């Protein structure tokens, strides 16, 4: 049952992810953003299968919810008509396909030749209590540095988007 669910979610994540960047039917950025929501929802499903419930919830709440609303705001505020009309250049498509294909090939060739990772049956420890304990004990230092990082990002966004250059 778990295996079947894994394949379903994994397939959906890949399929929707592909549609975000290369949708044959529409080049509307809003459509792409909507497919990104679906991709994130499928990823949340994968996290649930790994018993990482907190991460799954955060994926849906923060990414599919808050971040995507921001994305849509930006897309609608900017005039992306010109972007929509622009044709894809053959060179760019070919170069992109070659590099992505090469990485995929190396990765698949590696996967075929390697044993599966550490076998650990997932235990239900992806909840908030276990996560909180880890964040404030073992991972305290990186956690605190992330707070500085967020401050830097916030200062940067305010500066770069401020209207008047005085």
């Amino acid at each position, binding site marked *: 049952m778990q295996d079947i669910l894994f394949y379903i979610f994994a397939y959906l994540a890949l399929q929707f992810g592909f549609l975000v960047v290369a949708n044959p039917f529409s080049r509307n950025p809003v459509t792409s953003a909507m497919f990104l929501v679906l991709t994130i929802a499928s990823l949340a499903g994968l996290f649930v299968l790994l018993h990482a419930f907190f991460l799954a919830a955060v994926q849906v709440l923060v990414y599919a919810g808050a971040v995507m609303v921001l994305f849509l705001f930006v897309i609608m505020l900017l005039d992306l008509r010109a972007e929509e009309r622009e044709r894809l250049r053959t060179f760019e498509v070919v170069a992109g396909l070659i590099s992505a294909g090469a990485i995929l090939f*190396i*990765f698949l060739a*590696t*996967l075929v*030749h*390697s*044993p599966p*990772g*550490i076998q650990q049956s997932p235990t239900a*420890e*992806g909840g908030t209590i*276990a*996560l909180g*304990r*880890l964040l*404030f*004990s*073992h*991972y*305290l*230092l*990186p956690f605190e*540095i*992330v707070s*500085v*990082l967020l*401050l*830097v*990002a916030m*200062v*940067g966004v305010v*500066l*770069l988007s*401020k209207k*008047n*250059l*005085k």
Partner: protein
Amino acid sequence: MNIALLSHEWLVLLLGLGLLLADLWLPPAARRKLGYVAALGVAAILLYSILFVRLPAGGVEYAFGRMYILDSLALFFKRFFLLAALAVLLMSVEFAAEIQSGLTEYYALTLFALAGMLFACSANDFTLLFVSLELITISFYILTSFQRARTLSLEAGVKYLIIGALSTSFTVFGIALVYGTSGKLNFQDLAAVAPQLIGNKLFLFGLLWVMVGLGFKIAAFPFQIWAPDVYQGAPSPTTAFLAIGSKAAGFALVLRVLFTAVPAITAQWSHLLIVISAVTILYGNLCALPQRNVKRLLGYSSIAHAGYMLLGVAALSAAGQSAILYYLSGYLFTVLAAFTVICLVMRHAEGEDISRLAGLNQRSPLLAAAMALAMVSLAGVPPMAGFFGKFLLFKAALAQGATQHGYYWLVGIAILGVVISLYYYFGVIRAIYWPGNAPDPSPIPVSRPILLSIYACVAGMFFLGLYPNPVVTLTSKAASALQAETAAIHATATLPKAPRAAWTRSLLGPASAAPSRP
């Protein structure tokens, strides 16, 4: 838990936050001077570090469950970064007129990037590696696009953001694969299990991806594509900090990962490292030849220098690692001198074409001499720092030549690169001293702090070129810390679990409370 262990980082962060707060109460006219406050603060921290920070008898201390390490290598890099930031902050004060808004934030972000570098050189765990790298990179995204009125600056910021985000995703993917196959994030834990994982392709793939992310930081081929554009577009002090700080932080992490975490696997990667080093040297030097923009030229030359330093990594020996540290020290003084001059001469100019340096000799003989000496040092002509650094690197690689002939080829290519580089470095010197008609013959005023900074850089270049002994002792000691930790791992094979620090116990109550792994 010894809070004094992280004193460099806390002090720099406090200084940065203090600046942001001070901005609220200061009149706009006084903000420019805040840069001097920041520089003084950094100087005080550097002085404190040299006078009071001492390593314990064992030479190494850990904090936060062995996530943070303080050894002679980390201490070397911490002082290195503080020195770099000091000169960059002085440079920013001169550059203040060009920054339309958010001057205080510019100083504060420079300090936050510095804090990221200080954390990076103490990283002993992939989590800390990733977070500190991100702190550096995100600060630089903003610093790069700071001159919003200039299209070039914005373009540089966007390019750096996109390529940086891509390389970050590679790093995360790599770390995930390493963790997935080994179950370890800590470098020493990883070193204990890495010899069993040599045959595991997925593990090697993960490590390679981590190296892609670090290769982006040091601008090694084939991850160098951003360097010229970003160097050209960014404000000059940012470019200087990017060239020195960001690159050195990348090398600190490359050394830690390759020689502490996975020495057994690095030994098998000598071919790869040799090829990357050779191609990086050739690419950087050949592409620099036709450049007319000084900052762009230095961007390509920084790629070439990353190649020379990778030669030290490829040598896989303590001598090679020590030579990298020595080379970085020389590069620090040289690049800072060059960018200080560029910052002063070209701050009001639109483009940074080489021809703008014409007649510099008449306008300010001091700046002309500093720039010329910096170019001589970058080219690696004796008696400057760059020569002795290259000498040490080539010597370390040649010492390994007996085991593998590729090293001879590599040194041959590196010498070819040096010969090519002579052409474009001396092109800059010719522009300075050639009696051409200067676009603006007025003399250039040089403020006292900048004068001091230029004298210090020139003195550093000569000192490292003429009296290498004290610094060689320092760098070989720092490099030996890397070796000692590796040796200790091989001797014990499995390390005892880190004793849980007292603060964790007080935080979590009885011992059974915290699981150590997710």
